[in-house]
């Protein structure tokens, strides 16, 4: 009791209001003159001495302790109140303290006794108050510093009890503040524990001295709450001091565990992150701040990451370097690498989203470098992380969306190294253009030819002229009534989850934007030139609601101007202009087409098992990861059937449909690709039921699943959620007619698709040789993609293009993200890239597909779709209305709700339902999983699956309708997004011609 109140009085915050007036006969020290104070002080000390002196008396009785405590309190107050003498010399009381070695003797007495928690806390408090309140510098005096160090040394010897931790950290952080004010003191904090000359400073002759101030703080670096924050702040102060102090810096790197603790702390924190991110809303694709702030484990991780970043920012280069290395080798390689390669799609989605968040949040270039180095060069299971991520763009699920987000973030960095690996290295040899055209790489398209070309690709059915007749009732447009996702119904606009809206959609919102005066009507037009939007008179009334889309080209121009200028400005720091001459075409050998890093161990039968080597030394790809000198064996051509499964191309009507069905089931079980394809809402276009499918293997399959549940490899833990999800997908597949999951209509065969498939196969369990189907899965089906001699513009471009070709079938969100990414790419000013994507005058090698060609094929698809769909104009109108409304909703609700972490802030738009609310869970207990599985199994057995099996025909009709609705929905949205995308590309093409030359000048050093 007594002690408690005493302590609370010692606390500076508690004493702030009133002076303690305890203690017999003590006048208020404030009022007293220095002489009197000294006398009083000596008096108290004499009384303390009376207790301290009798040696052998041991720790003294409780009474003794209490008396010493009270006197100490008075001494402390007097000392704290004293001011230095005129010349800065110590005041009389301090002089006395120093001469008497008062603090040391006091500590010695305490230590001699039972130096328990209570007494430690008292001593810590004593120094804390002294440092916090003293009006003259104390630490520079050895008689103050020495006992303090000794006390800290004692704390270091025995780990602080939880109760003491807060006081210890508080004292330490106070010390750090003092030292920061007087950096010269820092080296005096080196302490050699029982050495002959206690506190003799950093004298390197007899082993390393300990910088206690620092090493005591390190264990708290990952703590939650106030203590952790104080510790981190204090450490940052030390880091900042280390910047100018080699001794301290080398102490930190050579004699402390600071860097490894930080880096492995990240690993530990990462392992506690949710393994799957559970979101409703089919538009979710990246983690916003409001998403993760509510998830404690993620917030904790981000805190630590931010701290790492801050340390790297302020610390000495030695520390910086070491920490960066540890983050790379102790977190990214051993933890992030395997996490990105987990076998379940859910986990891949989560880890990709995390990686995106990290890359987006790290502002410190040196740390960002470690992340990028990891992504670009580190090889996991034979493939660089980059290749793996690129391949995942080819998938058809949310995995594709989070991957798109990741690349959006990567592109927004304007990082030469990233662009070099992603695209430029494939363009540098200039083998994609005709020889005669190489010079034209640098040409600017001054007269808008390319823009005209892009605009000419706007499908006829999307021209404003092809409006529906005014009297046409849009209720005829019934694409999703009852079946499709609710988000297509315009009446539900208010309740739909909001999309993160990349640029194309943001154009739908411009009228609501803050610069309200700049609505279309008020756009300052260039005089003398008519704006195409200036005469609204001819529009049928109904279309006025969506007419803003028809007149928004000027907005695209402005936006493009800004983006291109910004990108050009950012790229000034690059090492070369990439204009076809610098670097020269010969600086890189042309990249042969099948440049995909696929090694046999992808398929599980290669010698090195990925899991065993993951903790080994980080592998890194050499710079020329795809170079011809690469010794990776080219996969053998497939003898079986190269095309069939690889691209998921429809194979209805193929003979052997029974086997087909079995394959599908297998895939559902083990192969993430199948899971993706099994999402019926994602991609529409259900597969016509394969004839002759008999479904009875379900039970055995479920049993297999069940048996596997507790012992998921990698300790991944089969979560209840993902398990039941798998089951649901299975169910859905059944309902859809039993012909296997509704296949997405995948793009035509392409090298990159190939790769994607390979990646997917890599996730699958090793095939059992006895299983012919597994062999089908496992044998790498090559034979696709251009022969090696042909020019290749790289897997990234290839996968983007094939995704684009498939636009008609992509979901709205995929298309928005995808076109955004391509537009981002198109903003880069490097002539090689610019000419490849945007210059309509360029002539490419016949085997090289151009963006215009790809878009041309999309145009044709949209037009033929529109021709086949009677109510297309009405549907188009409806889609536009919906998108506009949705866009406005976004802006209206959350004006600047995105607390941007940094540069990609413009991309980070806010979204209402936070992920935190939306439940982030993970289940690790195998028993729980098993129980859940059994329950689910029971339901499945008794429930819809059996029904589906029994009455497949009955359900087939509904499924087909649903699939059809989805197909139509995707296609109509695609028509809208495509049209906007063309305008955007045209505007970007025009903006390149007028980029200010000043922006392109390299910065002056």
């Amino acid at each position: 009791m007594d002690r408690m109140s005493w302590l609370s009085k010692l606390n500076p915050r508690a004493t702030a209001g009133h002076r303690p007036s305890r203690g017999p006969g003590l006048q208020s020290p404030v009022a007293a003159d220095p002489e009197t104070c000294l006398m009083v002080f000596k008096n108290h000390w004499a009384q303390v001495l009376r207790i301290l002196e009798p040696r052998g008396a041991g720790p003294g009785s409780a009474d003794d302790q209490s008396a010493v405590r009270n006197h100490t309190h008075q001494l402390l107050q007097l000392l704290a109140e004293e001011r230095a003498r005129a010349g800065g010399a110590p005041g009389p009381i301090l002089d006395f303290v120093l001469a008497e070695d008062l603090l040391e003797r006091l500590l010695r007495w305490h230590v001699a006794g039972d130096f328990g928690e209570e007494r430690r806390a008292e001593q810590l408090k004593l120094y804390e108050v002294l440092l916090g309140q003293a009006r003259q510098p104390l630490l520079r005096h050895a008689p103050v510093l020495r006992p303090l160090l000794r006390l800290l040394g004692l704390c270091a010897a025995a780990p602080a009890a939880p109760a003491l931790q807060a006081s210890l950290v508080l004292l330490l952080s106070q010390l750090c503040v003092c030292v920061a004010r007087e950096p010269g003191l820092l080296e005096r904090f080196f302490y050699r524990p029982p050495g002959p000359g206690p506190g003799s400073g950093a004298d390197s002759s007899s082993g390393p001295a300990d910088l206690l101030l620092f090493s005591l703080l390190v264990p708290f670096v990952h703590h939650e709450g106030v203590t952790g924050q104080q510790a981190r702040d204090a450490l940052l102060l030390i880091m900042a001091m280390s910047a100018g102090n080699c001794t301290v810096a080398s102490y930190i790197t050579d004699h402390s565990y600071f860097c490894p603790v930080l880096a492995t702390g990240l690993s530990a924190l990462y392992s506690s992150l949710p393994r799957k991110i559970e979101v409703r809303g089919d538009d979710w694709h990246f983690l916003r701040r409001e998403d993760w702030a509510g998830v404690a484990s993620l917030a904790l991780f981000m805190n630590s990451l931010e701290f790492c970043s801050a340390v790297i920012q302020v610390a000495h280069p030695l520390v910086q370097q070491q920490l960066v290395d540890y983050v790379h080798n102790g977190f990214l390689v051993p933890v992030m690498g395997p996490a990105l390669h987990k076998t379940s799609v859910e986990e891949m989605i989560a880890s990709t989203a995390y990686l995106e968040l990290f890359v987006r949040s790290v502002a410190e270039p040196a740390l960002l470098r470690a992340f990028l180095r990891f992504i670009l060069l580190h090889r996991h299971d034979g493939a660089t992380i980059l290749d793996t991520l690129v391949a995942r763009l080819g998938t058809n699920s949310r995995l594709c969306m989070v991957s798109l987000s990741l690349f959006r973030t990567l592109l927004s960095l304007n990082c030469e190294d990233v662009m070099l690996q992603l695209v430029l290295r494939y363009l540098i040899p200039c083998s994609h253009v005709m020889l005669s055209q190489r010079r034209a790489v640098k040409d600017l398209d001054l007269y808008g030819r390319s823009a005209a070309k892009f605009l000419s690709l706007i499908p006829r059915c999307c021209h404003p002229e092809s409006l529906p007749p005014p009297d046409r009732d849009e209720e005829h447009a019934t694409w999703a009534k009852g079946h499709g996702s609710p988000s297509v119904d315009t009446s539900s606009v208010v309740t739909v989850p909001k999309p993160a809206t990349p640029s194309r959609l943001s154009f739908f919102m411009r009228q609501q934007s803050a610069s309200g005066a700049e609505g279309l009507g008020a756009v300052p037009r260039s005089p003398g030139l008519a704006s195409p939007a200036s005469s609204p008179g001819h529009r049928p009334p109904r279309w006025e609601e969506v007419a803003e889309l028809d007149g928004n080209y000027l907005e695209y121009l402005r936006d493009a101007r800004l983006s291109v200028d910004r990108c050009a400005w950012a790229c000034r720091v690059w090492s070369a202009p990439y204009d076809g001459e610098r670097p020269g075409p010969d600086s890189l050998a042309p990249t042969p087409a099948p440049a995909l890093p696929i090694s046999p161990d992808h398929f599980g039968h290669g010698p090195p098992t990925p899991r065993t080597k993951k903790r080994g030394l980080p592998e890194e790809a050499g710079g020329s990861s795809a170079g011809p000198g690469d010794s990776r064996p080219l996969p053998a051509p497939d003898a079986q059937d190269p095309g069939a499964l690889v691209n998921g191309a429809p194979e209805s009507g193929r003979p052997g449909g029974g086997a087909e069905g079995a394959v599908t089931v297998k895939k559902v079980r083990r192969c993430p690709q199948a899971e993706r394809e099994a999402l019926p809402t994602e991609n529409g276009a259900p597969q016509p039921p394969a004839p002759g499918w008999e479904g009875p293997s379900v039970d055995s399959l479920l049993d297999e699943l069940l048996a596997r549940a507790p012992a998921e490899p990698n300790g991944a833990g089969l979560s209840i959620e993902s398990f039941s999800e798998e089951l649901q997908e299975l169910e859905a597949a059944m309902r859809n007619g039993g012909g296997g999951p509704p296949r997405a209509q995948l793009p035509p065969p392409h090298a990159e698709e190939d790769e994607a498939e390979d990646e997917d196969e890599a996730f699958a369990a090793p095939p059992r040789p006895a299983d012919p189907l597994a062999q089908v899965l496992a044998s790498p089906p090559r034979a696709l993609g251009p022969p090696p001699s042909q020019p290749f513009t790289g897997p990234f471009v290839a996968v983007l293009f094939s995704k684009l070709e498939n636009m008609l079938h992509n979901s709205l969100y995929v298309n928005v993200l995808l076109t955004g990414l391509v537009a981002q790419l198109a903003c880069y000013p490097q002539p090689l890239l610019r000419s490849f994507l945007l210059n309509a005058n360029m002539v490419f090698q016949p085997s090289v597909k151009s963006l215009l060609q790809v878009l041309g094929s999309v145009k044709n698809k949209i037009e033929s779709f529109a021709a086949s769909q009677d109510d297309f104009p009405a549907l188009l109108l409806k889609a536009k209305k919906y998108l506009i409304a949705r866009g406005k909703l976004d802006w209206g609700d959350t004006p600047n709700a995105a607390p941007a972490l940094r540069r990609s802030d413009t991309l980070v738009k806010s979204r209402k339902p936070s992920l935190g609310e939306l439940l982030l869970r993970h289940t690790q207990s195998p028993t729980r999983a098993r129980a859940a599985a059994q329950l689910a199994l029971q339901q499945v057995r008794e429930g819809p699956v059996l029904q589906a099996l029994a009455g497949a025909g009955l359900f087939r009709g509904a499924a087909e309708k649903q699939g059809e609705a989805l197909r139509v929905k995707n296609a109509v949205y695609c028509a809208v997004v495509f049209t906007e995308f063309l305008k955007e590309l045209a505007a970007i093409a025009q903006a390149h011609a007028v980029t200010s030359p000043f922006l392109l000048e390299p910065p002056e050093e």
Partner: protein
Amino acid sequence: MSTSSARKRPEAEEKTLTGELRTSPPRTSTKKQLPSIPKNTVPVTKPASPAPSSQSTNGTHASYGPFYLEYSLLAEFTLVVKQKLPGVYVQPSYRSALMWFGVIFIRHGLYQDGVFKFTVYIPDNYPDGDCPRLVFDLPVFHPLVDPLSGELDVKRAFAKWRRNHNHIWQVLMYARRVFYKIDTTSPLNPEAAVLYEKDIQLFKSKVVDSVKLCSSHLFDQPKIEDPYAITFSPWNPAIHDEAREKMLTQKKKSEDQHCKSMHVSGLSWVKPGSVQPFSKEEKTMPT
């Protein structure tokens, strides 16, 4: 505007470009394509030049034609800025992107100290039409300048205007060169041509008179009223000293401003001359 501050402009001491020319920092002036409308100025909307782009094959994107024209001109202007022609300054008019105001400072030779204002007229079917016309505000005494209209004979240098090959900066360069290298064949001003051939002294004195005449009209109101017309005013220390100071320190400042307005910096760890990522020494990254 190509008033790059790096360049010395001795003229600035006695004459100052005022108006837009003075207030626009070099960087922003290239963004003039969509100028904000100054207060109290009603834009005279020219009867919309339809400028049907040759690529316009269907109705819809014909409506984008004006953007092509505008951007073509803007691109031309950007090229002018890139060329950094010494002593030549141009600025597109506010009213029409097809009309550019300019001024040439002649720094040596027969026309030394000449300050000639001019206007460039670009045909509205640019770049598929004729070459642009260049008309001096005052008819300079010169064999190739029409003594009545002040028009420079541009056509002789650009008999056929070829898109992608001919650019407006070439016209400006040509306009500058005629004052340094006198050509007398088939002159627009035969008197000047003859004098140059036969009586160089008289020619010189006529030129001096012409230069003086131009200088004496320097402070006149611009011939064409336009917010972006180039006007000169006498040196007024209250205004111009500060402006001059700004111009001389412009380089550094505008750099900073730009950094602020853009505040995006790219990243690169590629060693110059290398094509390998992360080939740069690690320590070179700024912390």
